[in-house]
């Protein structure tokens, strides 16, 4: 009887009521054996919205958690706007991350009897708009995001008690669905949600995920930011309390620092006071991973911050102009707090200054799709939300001027990204633990297999069995190298192309460090690249661009230009034993078409010049940190 959610609700207005519980799962516990070390990379999306998200429903999404799980697992579902949708390959895990703030509220307002809202002009207007037309619903969503940014939403959507009344049943029912679809060893369904503070429209959002099943996760309600304005330190406290009460575990994943107006990685606390060691340690513990790439742009690097990095501008267009709600312009001076590479450098500066690093994080990609469909392939992209699903002809060209926005167009959305986790099995526990030890990486959609180990004793011969050597003599991505005998650390690196995507242009190591004056620096090393016989590094170590083989009239490219695999042993040539440093790997595919190109071919559109049509998709690994001997 789980699904007759709405039958019994009658005049109980916003209380979405369920009716009877499903007979609990009576399956014998499946035994899943963990491998000794992570042998396989598991692919997932940790950031997916369904019709329980206040904005997703307003955008038109009518697919629920079950359909989202079925889709992620590889089944065909019918998208809200009627198009059949199926992933080219299943994902291994999924976190449904509906906004905790006002969870289920638009659905409830839309479905409430009109008569019950007669005394409330504000909600009544939204109710009518939601039901009247698609444009009306979009307008409601725009007002909602705008109101969230400005802090002008009515109490009904922000008051914790109101939240609790509406959310309790919804969250319990959600837990049942997620548990039903969690199949240890085959597909992992995580409990989770999104915590959504956005003071003045500056994005401070975090995805929250549980290591535990519904039995524990539903003993707490999705923690709200209490009016889209909360201090993330409150969330960390909530997480600690949950862990103490239940013996369970949670982690938080900041995202879209690119539209935080410099606030996601600012050099002070939320309340403006200076960062101290206690704050730094708590943050690093609670937020071991950052989502670096997704539909709303890429947050790895910006050309303003990294003028020597010719690949720094990926996914920045449109997103670097103004904050999330586009209510505040963002000056380049704010970028340092908005991009992850700079944050990693700031982290080292703080180690130098206060002895602890709040920004010691690994990275993943995820979609942030609001369609219940976790798509990140350019030729199978279902859009940011249901108003720009795959069958919307002009979606690439339409302005995304919700609320007071300006300057962002459909084509600015990226068909990105996915999270890759080196875990010892496909289970909640193993994947969550991989996140905690940061043995994860991000891609903008393609599923390239990337290994990255650091150590003091590696030799080039270790490449013969780099996984074995990597774990025995070093640390994997996300790990720490401390001390050493003063010789430079070396690294075992391999990147295997996604057999369903493009071959590889190059593998780079991005190094950040603190110089003798306490200032952070960065340098990018090309360590392995395709056609090395003909493409030579110049005096600065730069390698020319790989030939572009994209045929825009067909949406094709030639994989012969790139390498199927790039692998190398590499030692830092500029190592200084007394300087804190981090190293991460960036893998670039050869140039391929962006999703608007496929739309143009499908709908016979002419794309204006400013639309980016060719890109180099990429992977970013979590860093390995070097700490000098004390």
């Amino acid at each position: 009887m789980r699904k007759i959610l709405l039958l019994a609700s009658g005049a109980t207005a916003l209380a979405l009521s369920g009716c009877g519980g499903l007979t609990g799962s009576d399956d014998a516990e499946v035994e899943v054996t963990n491998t000794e070390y992570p042998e396989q990379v598991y692919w997932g999306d940790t950031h997916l919205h369904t019709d329980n998200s206040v904005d997703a429903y307003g955008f038109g999404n009518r697919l629920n958690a079950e359909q989202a799980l079925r889709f992620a697992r590889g089944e065909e579902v019918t998208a809200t706007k009627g198009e059949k949708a199926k992933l080219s390959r299943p994902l291994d895990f999924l976190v449904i991350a509906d906004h905790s703030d006002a969870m289920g509220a638009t659905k409830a307002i839309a479905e409430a009897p009109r008569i019950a809202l007669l005394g409330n002009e504000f909600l009544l207007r939204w109710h009518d708009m939601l039901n009247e037309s698609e444009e009306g619903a979009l307008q409601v969503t725009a007002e909602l995001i705008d109101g969230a940014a400005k802090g002008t939403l009515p109490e009904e959507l922000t008051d914790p008690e109101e939240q609790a009344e509406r959310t309790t049943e919804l969250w319990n029912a959600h837990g049942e669905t997620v548990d039903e679809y969690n199949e240890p060893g085959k597909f992992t369904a995580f409990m989770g949600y999104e915590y959504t503070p956005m003071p003045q429209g500056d994005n401070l959002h975090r995805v929250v995920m549980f290591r535990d099943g519904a039995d524990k996760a539903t003993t707490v309600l999705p923690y709200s930011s209490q009016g889209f304005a909360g201090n993330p330190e409150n969330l960390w406290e909530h997480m600690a309390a949950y862990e103490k009460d239940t013996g369970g575990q949670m982690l938080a994943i900041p995202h879209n620092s690119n539209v935080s107006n410099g606030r996601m990685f600012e050099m002070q606390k939320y309340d403006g006071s200076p960062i101290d060691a206690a704050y730094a340690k708590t943050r690093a513990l609670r937020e071991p991973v950052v989502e670096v790439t997704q539909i709303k742009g890429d947050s790895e690097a910006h050309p303003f911050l990294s003028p020597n990095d010719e690949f720094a501008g990926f996914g920045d267009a449109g997103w670097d102009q103004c904050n999330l709600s586009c209510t505040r312009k963002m000056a380049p001076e704010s970028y340092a707090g908005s991009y992850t590479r700079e944050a990693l450098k700031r982290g080292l500066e703080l180690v130098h200054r206060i002895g602890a690093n709040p920004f010691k994080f690994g990275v993943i990609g995820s979609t942030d799709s609001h369609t219940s469909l976790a798509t990140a392939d350019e030729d199978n992209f279902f859009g940011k939300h249901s108003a720009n699903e795959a069958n919307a002809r002009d979606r690439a060209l339409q302005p995304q001027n919700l609320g007071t926005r300006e300057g962002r167009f459909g084509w600015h959305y990226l068909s990105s990204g996915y999270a890759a986790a080196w875990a010892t099995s496909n289970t909640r526990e193993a994947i969550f633990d991989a996140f905690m030890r940061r043995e994860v990486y991000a891609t903008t959609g393609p599923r390239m297999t990337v290994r990255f180990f650091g150590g003091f004793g590696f030799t080039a011969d270790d490449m013969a069995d780099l996984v074995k050597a990597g774990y025995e003599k070093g640390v994997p991505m996300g790990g720490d190298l401390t001390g050493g005998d003063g010789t430079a650390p070396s690294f075992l690196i391999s990147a295997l192309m996604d057999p369903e995507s493009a071959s590889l242009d190059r593998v780079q190591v991005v190094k950040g460090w603190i110089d003798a004056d306490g200032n952070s620096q960065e340098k990018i090393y090309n360590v392995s690249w395709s056609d090395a016989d003909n493409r030579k590094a110049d005096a600065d170590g730069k390698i020319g661009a790989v030939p572009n083989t994209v045929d825009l009239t067909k949406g094709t490219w030639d994989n012969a230009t790139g390498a199927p695999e790039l692998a190398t042993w590499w030692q830092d040539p500029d190592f200084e034993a007394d300087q804190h440093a981090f190293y991460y790997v960036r893998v670039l595919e050869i140039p391929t078409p962006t999703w608007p190109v496929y739309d143009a071919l499908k709908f016979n559109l002419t794309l204006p010049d400013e639309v980016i049509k060719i890109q180099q998709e990429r992977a970013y690994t979590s860093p390995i940190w070097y700490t000098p001997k004390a």
Partner: protein
Amino acid sequence: MAETPRLKKLLKEPLVHFLGGALLVFGFFWATGSDRDPADYAIAVDATDIDRLRAGWIRNFRREPTATELDGLIDQEIREEIYYREALRLGLDRNDPVIRRRLFTKMRFLRNAEADLEPADAVLQQWLEENPEKYGGTGQFDLEQVYLGQAGEMDENRIAQLRDRLNAGQKENAGKAISLPESLQATETETVARLFGEGFARALGELPVGSWEGPVLSGFGLHLVKIANRKAGTIPVLDDVRQQVRNDWRAAETQKAEEGEYQKLRGQYDIRIAGQD
């Protein structure tokens, strides 16, 4: 009531704004002696209803309601029922697009609810036998592969020579290095596809068993492949995949029931569409 009353209050006092007006209309019908079926005025709150109310409370608040709280719930139930019936009498359900959509949704959910019955093992077993490919029943391979580089990298004669050498049992220094497994044992087709790409896995189905064959194209380039053993897809044991089978069965059943019901209903209607006569 404040201008933007809290929803909680609305929940507890639904329709208050409407009450005055509704009573006036109601009074009119009372005074003019409209026909009324006395049976329509009976409301029975039976034990099942009370259990349902109690269960709802427990799910919400994680505890039993007190006697007063339960009385409150029952009172609310009666109040809703009365207003609901009066609203129907007043025809408030007509010409309202929201109610129309709501009833549409309910009809759909009704069908879903029916499909939610717990299926018998035999039903699941049958589903499994009809759809074995969804549960790893796609066959397994024991195979070896040698990577030849990207298409065009090695000329055809060289590939033919290499294949002959391999078939003569000389495996030394064959092919190019890549971090893909050189041999796979009892590996599911879907795992092969995950490692080498969909096209490669498909091509394996066509190859003779027991000899080096190819080149076979993968996402990485060309390979010579020797399939030592190809096991046809078998039907997995239900207990190993029960949860997934039950989920899939239920989803399919829901869809089937909904579509069937719709077609049955639709068959009763005479439908005309402009321009499609």
